[in-house]
Structures are given as C-alpha cells and as structure tokens.
C-alpha cells in the first residue's frame, strides 16, 4: 500500500513524532465514537490512553492499526500523511497492535499464531520450516519469561497465557509503534512485571508505545504521558509523573469519585448458604471445600492457573465434577448442569464474556433477560417484551451501560460495556450465591467503583458473593474473607482485615510438598 518508511537520522526522528493524529472523527450507526481527537506519540515514549468504557480508546487504536477507516481527520506517521487502509498497511508502516479482544486461532500452535502471514519456509518456499517457526517463538517466550512450549495449541491455554501469546506476537513484528489495548486485563502481577520490563526495554530502543489500561497503578509505573478521552472527545494530555491520579480520574469521568471504605461486617452468625465439600476435577481442582455465609464477600485469590475458574465452573455444573458434594442452605443438591445450579440459586459470571457470557449478535435487551426468561413469560410461552424492555432500561441506567439503546447489538458495545451487560444478566436472575470471575476485567475506574458498591449491596441484602480476581487490590478492598488457591488446592484462608498482598502471595505460591 505504501512504500517502506524513508530512512531518517536519529536526530530527526526525535523531533518528528512517530504518530501524529489530528481531528480524528469516526461514527457508527447511532454512535459518534470519536470526534476531533488528537494524539501524538514520540519515539521512546510510553503514552497511556485513558478513558471510561466506551470513551473511544479501542476505536482510535483500530483506526491506527488499519482495522477501521477514519471518517475525518489526518494521520501522520513519522511526518508523512498516511491513509492506513488495512492491517497489512499498518504492519508495513511499522505499527503493531495487541487488540483488546483476543484474536487467536485456537486450533493452531502458539508458534504458528505468532508467525501467521510471515512463516519461514524452506525448499524454495515450498514447505514450512517448522523448526525456525518454533525457535522464533521460543525466543520470544524466553524474552517474556514465559514457560510455554511453542507447539502447544492456543485453544488449550488459559486466557492469561493466550494474552501472553498475543503480546509475543506483537513483539515479533519489531514495530516502531506498539499499541497495547488492555494487555494486562488477564494477567497477574508477576506477568505484569515481566511485561513492563520488556516495555521499558523497547522504550529505551526508541519504540513508541501506546498503552491502554484501566488499572491506575500501572499508569504511574509505566507511562510518560497520559492522554484522556471522554465520550469520544479529546480532553487533555498530561505528564504521568507529575499529575496526581485523582486529577486523571476526574478528567476521565468528568466528576469527582467518592472513595468508599469497606467496613467488614460480622457474618459469623449468618446462615450458611453454600457448602462445597471435597470438590475434585482433574488436576486443576483437588479436593477443595468451602463454606459461604449469607452477607459475606469472599475473595478467591491465586496465580494464573491456580484453578479458581475451574473450581467455580465445577461448582456451577459447567464442567463435570470428578467428585464432591454441594449443599445449598444445608440441603444436598445434585448439580450436574448450570441449569441445576441456577435452580439451586447459584450464579456464575464467566471471565470470558465473548465466548461464555454474551449472545453476541443479540441485543442488550435479549442478553439482559437470558438467565431468567421465566420472569418475562406470560401464559407459559408468550414473551413479555414490555417487562423485558423495562428491566433492560433499568439495568442500562443502573449500571451506566453506554449504548444507543436497549436494541443495540451487544457485539457493537465497547468491551467494558459488554461486561456490564453480563453483570446485568446475573442481577436480573437474582441468585443467592454468586460467583464473579474477574468481574471488573476491562471495566473503567468509575464503573469499577459502581460495581464494588453493587457487590457490597448484594452482600448486604443477604447474598453470598465469591469474587475471583487477579487484582490483589481489588481482592483486598472487597473481601470479608480471602481464600487462596495454588495448583488446584486451597492453601489458606485469611480474614479480610488481616489480608495483605504479601500474605496472599505467600499462600498463592505454597506448593504441595
């Protein structure tokens, strides 16, 4: 599409921004996603892009990466005006991207996923050179300190590892501009540290990095400058080091956020809602027992692959259990499918909204009602559209879901707003026992606070809540009690008041002898 970038001297490059965007506008049917947005990126800079869910961050990045076409505005790459018409064109301009949503081919190996489109070949281009492909991937993994066989099929990996593969792929392009759209949403602290080491390395090599995240602490750790978007509009660009977090948050949400300090209620006298005894499933869940009382929020912490998701899925009946029993309010329940679980009053909000949470292709309204259609049926089978619409509208307002209407296809919502729709679905179902698996993944700071308040309300109303989260501050802030898992076993329990990052991490790495 365009010629290779012209060679420029080091001095010139530092003067000319790698990326210079002006007056960018983009509309989707019913949504003006971007309006008059400007953005620039210098070589050797980490530039954070911040904003609430649906602010337009991903849309802006997709325009740079050639996925969407801008409606208006100008893009300059190294000073040259460019019309980036396709992902290939972006690649040729030296722009690499880690998308917010995973874009992997599950049936292919990690190595092939990384080198798709650029496979080394042998025998005059006739055959694939598997060896070089695998070696190349191994090198990238080593750099990321990722212990993973490049020949493993991507579909067999956990979300976190898939995310790491995506990052490895983006690195492999050796781009001059690297865009990372919420790369750490699925990662734990150790992995984030490794990633940051690499980002700093790249930065020192002169690569420009656009970094999107909703985790405020990361911004302070890694970013040089911060650009803030709100409702598709450019708000401001500020230096990261000298700007207080409160100020950035205020710019993002356009209002001051009240910090809620959790008070830990005494739930020891409350009735036991759920008792899971000796739950087993394969290697990932080995003989786990837990008890949940009405009114408590239990944090379930652990490293990636600790088996938290598997435990929740096993209790929920999503996967077959190898053993163990489940009692709800003291009554033994034979839970063999999600249907049984929901009937017994157990809900589970999956960590993977795209595959397990949403009926993509249906509208907000339909998704909201999906877990409890019985509520919206008259005479056994007639849909009560009116009631459904009312409920959906309520939820949109209550959770501040940014959508042009309840009839908007959820596929077209921003990632964070999709997550809110999944939460709405479970709020409608109103289960007594709720497992939230990474409930704030990809959710902005304002909404996060709302969700925390929501979880606290739910608990206060006498429900039992389990929050699985890889963000320790979140676990610490919410939990009345913290359970820690490591390698499929429960390694300890810490009362909320005594929990610290340190003692949680100690239990999370407590391997079996």
């Amino acid at each position: 599409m365009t010629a290779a970038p012209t060679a420029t001297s080091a001095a010139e490059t530092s003067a000319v921004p790698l990326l210079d965007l002006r007056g960018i506008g983009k509309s989707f049917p019913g949504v003006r996603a971007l309006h008059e947005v400007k953005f620039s990126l210098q070589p050797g800079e980490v530039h954070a892009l911040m904003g609430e869910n649906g602010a337009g961050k991903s849309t802006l990045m997709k325009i740079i990466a050639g996925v969407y076409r801008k409606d208006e505005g100008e893009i300059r790459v190294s000073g040259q005006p460019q019309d980036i018409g396709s992902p290939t064109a972006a690649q040729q301009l030296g722009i690499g991207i880690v998308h917010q949503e995973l874009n992997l081919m599950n049936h292919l190996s990690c190595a092939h996923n990384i080198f798709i489109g650029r496979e080394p070949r042998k025998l005059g281009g006739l055959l694939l050179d598997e060896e070089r492909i695998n070696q190349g991937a191994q090198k990238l993994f080593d750099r990321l300190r990722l212990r993973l066989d490049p020949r493993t099929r991507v579909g067999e990996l956990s979300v976190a590892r898939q995310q790491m593969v995506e990052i490895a792929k983006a690195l492999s392009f050796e781009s001059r501009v690297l865009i990372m759209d919420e790369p750490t949403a699925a990662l734990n602290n150790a992995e984030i540290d490794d990633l940051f080491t690499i980002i700093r390395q790249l930065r020192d090599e002169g690569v420009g990095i656009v970094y999107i995240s909703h985790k405020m602490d990361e911004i302070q750790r890694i970013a040089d400058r911060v650009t803030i978007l709100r409702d598709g509009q450019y708000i401001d660009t500020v230096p990261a080091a000298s700007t207080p977090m409160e100020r950035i948050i205020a710019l993002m949400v356009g209002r001051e956020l009240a910090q809620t300090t959790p008070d830990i209620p005494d739930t020891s006298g409350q009735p036991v809602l759920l008792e899971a005894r000796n739950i087993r499933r394969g290697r990932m869940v080995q003989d786990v027992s837990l008890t949940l009382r009405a009114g408590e929020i239990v944090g379930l912490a652990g490293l990636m692959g600790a088996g938290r998701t598997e435990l929740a899925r096993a209790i929920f009946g999503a996967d077959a259990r190898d053993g163990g029993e489940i009692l709800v309010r003291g009554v033994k329940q034979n839970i063999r499918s999600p249907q049984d679980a929901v009937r017994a009053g157990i809900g589970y909000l999956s960590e993977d909204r795209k595959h397990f949470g949403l009926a993509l292709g249906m509208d907000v309204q339909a998704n909201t009602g999906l877990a409890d259609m019985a509520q919206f049926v008259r005479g056994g089978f007639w849909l009560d559209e009116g009631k459904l619409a009312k409920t959906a509208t309520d939820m949109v307002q209550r959770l501040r879901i940014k959508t042009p209407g309840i009839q908007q296809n959820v596929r077209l919502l921003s990632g964070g707003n999709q997550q809110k729709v999944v939460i709405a679905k479970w709020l409608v179902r109103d289960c007594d026992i709720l497992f939230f698996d990474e409930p704030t993944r990809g959710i902005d700071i304002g909404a996060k606070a709302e969700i925390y308040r929501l979880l606290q309300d739910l608990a206060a109303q006498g429900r039992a809540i389990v929050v699985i989260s890889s963000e320790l501050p979140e676990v610490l802030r919410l939990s009345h009690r913290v359970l820690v898992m490591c390698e499929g076993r429960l390694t300890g329990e810490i009362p909320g008041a005594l929990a610290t990052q340190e003692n949680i991490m100690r239990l999370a790495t407590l391997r079996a002898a």
Partner: protein
Amino acid sequence: MDTAAPSKLKRLLGADARQKLLAFASLLALIAIFGALKPDAFLTEENVVGILQATSVNGVLAVACTFVIITAGIDLSVGVLMTFCSVMAGVFMVNWGLPMAVGVPGAIAVGALMGCASGLTITKLRVPPFIATLGLMMLLKGLSLIITGTRPIYFSDIEGFDAIALGTLIPGLPNGVLVFALVAGVSAIVLNKTLLGRYTFALGSNEEAVRLSGVNVDRWKIIVYAYSGAVCGIAGLMMASRLNSAQPALGQGYELDAIAAVVIGGTSLAGGVGTILGTVIGAFIMSVLVNGLRILSVAQEWQMVLTGLIIILAVYTDNLRRKRQH
C-alpha cells in the same frame, strides 16, 4: 448516554423489515420481467394461483428449516421426512383405517417425533446436525420404502382428504395455500413472540453462553427440531393430499430448495439471524423463477444454469443491501 428507544413505528418496521421490503422488491422485479415477456400467460389469475400452490409445499419446508438454521444448525432430512410423514398418514388412515381426525394429527406427531430423534442425536450423541440429519434422511428414505413395499399408498377412499390441499375454502384459492399462510403466520409468531423463538435465536447466537445462563440448551434444541419436524409433517399431509397418494420415493432434493429459500430470504447459515417473512419471500423467488422460465419454454438445461446464477445473485444483492445499512 442516549438510550432513547427507537420510535414505535421504526421498531415495527425496523432494519429487518426494511431489508425484507427490499427483498420483496427483487421478487417484484422478477415478476415484472416475466410479466413483461409473457403477460398473457404469466400474469393470469390461473398462473398466479398456480405459483401460490407450487410454492406452498416448498414454502412450508423452508419455514421448518428456518428455525433450525437460526439455531446455526441444518436439516437435510426435511424433504424425506415430509415423505415419511405422508407415508405414515397412509399407514394410519388407509392401512389401519383410522379416521382423519386421528390420522392427520398422527402424521404431524410422527414428524415431531422424528424431529425429536434428530434433536436427540445432535444434543445427546453430540453428532453435528449435518450428519445427524443426513443419517436420518437415509434412514427414513429406506423406512418409507420398506413400510410401503416401495408402492404408493393411495388415499382415494379417504373422504375429504384431498380437501387439505385442493379444497377451496376461499373460492379460487386452493386450501394448500391457506395452510402455507397459516403455518408461516403461526411460525412467525412463535419465532418472535414466544420463549421458543427467543431461545432459537439465542442458541444460534452463542450456545455456550446460553448454557452457562442456566438454560437447558439440549431441551430447547430438541424442541426446535421437533417443531421443525411437525411442520414437515404438515408438508407431508399437503403433499399427500395434493397427489392423493404417498409416494415413498419422493422427497430427496427438496431440502436443498428449502434451504436455498431460507438463505435467499436473509437467514444466516451462521445462526442467530432470520425471519419467516424473508423465508416466504425466498420461497416465492424460487418458484416464480422456475415458473417463469417454464412459461417462457426455456430449455431445462438453461433453467438450471439460470436458477444457479439467480440464487447466487439474490444472496449477493441481499448482502449489498445489508452493507449499505452500515
């Protein structure tokens, strides 16, 4: 945050309806072309009734397929199942001498039962729909021949049976067309206004998400296939009534016409999207095309070539329309 609901009217018509109007336009275009080329034969009342009648069986089968296709499944057995139901109608009424009041619902029940069998194979044995219904197709084809001894069963002695398709409650309009209209109307309501319809779309949209929402996915899928099977049963009765006989060797190949009608009507084979109105229009596009080419005495070979081209074209223009909406 603009959550303002679209106006009532716009919702009633909606993007879908607008698209359907456009699909309707290509049907009208087809009619206009044939009408212009041979007005005295094509646009006669007689031929219009003929087209309506010719559409009805394929139309009913297409309606049956629509449900299954919206769940992202496919049903290759519809044609042969139709035949099997007509054979069973013959067994009930002719061989066993049961009255029509039993035989007719009986044949529909057989259809529903076979639909259940597909559904069970797909859900419980985890056989993909293509293979499950292909297997059922072969099986039913054989069974129809075995049950009848490869001879047609004649309904000549069943008083009033021919009225199902050929009677004229509305003067000049064969009842078969009414049955088609009724089946389409009821199915449109089922698809849009009932729980079954909602789950049909949801299954096609993301089955795993539906399952994790605590819905008994298997049960609803079986019900969808059973509903589709029952509709095939109705098609079987229409066919038997019109031919006054159950022809055991008929039916294979009808599924492709039905599926083509569904897809021309804008239903996506990937699931989650579709309307009955679109299917009805799709079925009419197919039969107007065949009828028009026959009226023009186009040689059969060329009929095939043109039908192939126009099916592709119809789906292509449908895509164009959708794109323009973005």
